[in-house]
């Protein structure tokens, strides 16, 4: 146990490092900050809500930078896409925060927030899961026919629709190999930023599917590009929270000591798998986060009396991180075995790069 003087709480050091490490792996792999996992975990450890957000945001800024540098080395960042989106994202976040303030004045912010996050996350989970299963099957068929499916395959028809919008200026994103109207990129940034600002999260779990399914970027590029956005938004959030005094640097440093290793591992792990594997992990993380939000919703609706829910919340919050982390580690392990020509489960073959 460590006494965090600024936050005024005592929390276990191993669990903080564990959270940093696991969320680092997951964040580097699926291109999210992981705020929807870290903030509830910190609250579970006893940190007050505002401190949890501040610590989470500051640690995301540091971890995001490490993941971004790794993804840059791996060639997963499209700078044109990233920088075009920043303007839309910032405007969207501002609009989202204003709507949140409006709901706060009405006194219904808590319930609206939880219902919106459940609806958004569950819809994203459903679409990602269904599309990825289709892509997985198609990759399996291609592999069975002796055709190498390459690193990416997605079956959604939405990117073609959005890429055909003829509004000038048209942007050529060379790394992502996408030619699309800049207004589409700005609009994607605006909408995802709006949802992120309204829900009070970084928004990686909305932006990555949006970049894949609307703009048409490959999953690896979406992950790397989204991490650039996270560095900007996380850095700004960290500054704001630090000025407000919502950051306990000791907690941030402890989490970062785990996250710096985890983020590098998670980023490198993307080079072992094909796009659908990343989308699977993203969709699993979405459904688990949805479950957490449903539990909080039940807690609020039951007049904050269901004590057993707080115990279940601890299990789910820490359990989901461990599960996602181990799933990623096992994919890398299977990928290495597959490369060496050793036996791997049948479902793994279409998901890993051989």
């Amino acid at each position, binding site marked *: 146990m460590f006494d965090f003087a600024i936050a005024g709480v005592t929390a*276990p050091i191993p669990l903080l490092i564990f959270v940093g490490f696991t969320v680092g792996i997951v964040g580097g792999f699926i291109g999210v900050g992981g705020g929807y996992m870290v903030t509830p975990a910190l609250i579970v450890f006893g940190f007050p809500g505002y401190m949890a957000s501040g610590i989470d945001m500051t640690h995301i800024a540091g971890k995001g930078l490490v993941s971004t540098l790794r993804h840059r080395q791996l060639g997963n960042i499209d700078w044109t896409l990233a920088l075009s989106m920043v303007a839309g994202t910032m405007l969207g976040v501002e609009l989202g925060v204003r709507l949140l303030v409006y709901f706060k004045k009405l006194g219904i912010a808590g319930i609206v927030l939880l219902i919106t996050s459940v609806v958004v996350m569950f819809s994203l989970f459903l679409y990602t899961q269904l599309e990825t299963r289709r892509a997985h099957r198609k990759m399996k068929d291609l592999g069975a026919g002796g055709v190498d499916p390459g690193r990416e395959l997605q079956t959604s028809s939405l990117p073609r629709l959005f890429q055909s919008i003829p509004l000038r200026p048209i942007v050529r994103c060379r790394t992502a190999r996408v030619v699309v109207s800049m207004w589409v990129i700005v609009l994607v940034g605006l909408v995802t930023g709006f949802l992120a600002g309204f829900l009070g999260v970084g928004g990686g779990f909305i932006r990555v599917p949006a970049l894949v399914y609307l703009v048409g970027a490959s999953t690896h590029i979406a992950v790397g590009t989204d991490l650039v956005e996270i560095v900007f938004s996380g850095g700004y959030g960290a500054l704001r929270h630090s000025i407000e005094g919502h950051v306990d640097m000791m907690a941030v440093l402890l989490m970062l000591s785990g996250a710096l290793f985890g983020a590098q591992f998670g980023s490198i792990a993307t080079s072992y798998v094909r796009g659908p594997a990343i989308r699977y992990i993203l969709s699993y993380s979405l459904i688990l986060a949805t479950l957490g939000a449903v539990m909080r919703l039940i807690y609020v609706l039951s007049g904050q009396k269901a004590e057993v829910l707080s115990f279940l919340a601890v299990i789910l919050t820490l359990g989901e991180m461990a*599960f996602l982390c181990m799933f990623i580690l*096992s994919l890398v392990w299977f990928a290495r075995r597959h490369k060496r020509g050793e036996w791997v489960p049948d479902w793994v073959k279409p998901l890993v790069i051989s």
Partner: protein
Amino acid sequence: MTAAEKDMAVAGGKDLPIVKRLLNSMWFYWMFLLGISLGIAAAIYLIWLRGTV
């Protein structure tokens, strides 16, 4: 047995030992179970440290 036949045997799962068959079909559930077990362990660790979750 050719490589393609080996693959088919794996896909059918008939000739595989039980461990490989379980890995083939239920890896997700094993990982989930292990993750949740670690979550329970962490919750017990917190209770041991603080007396409450």
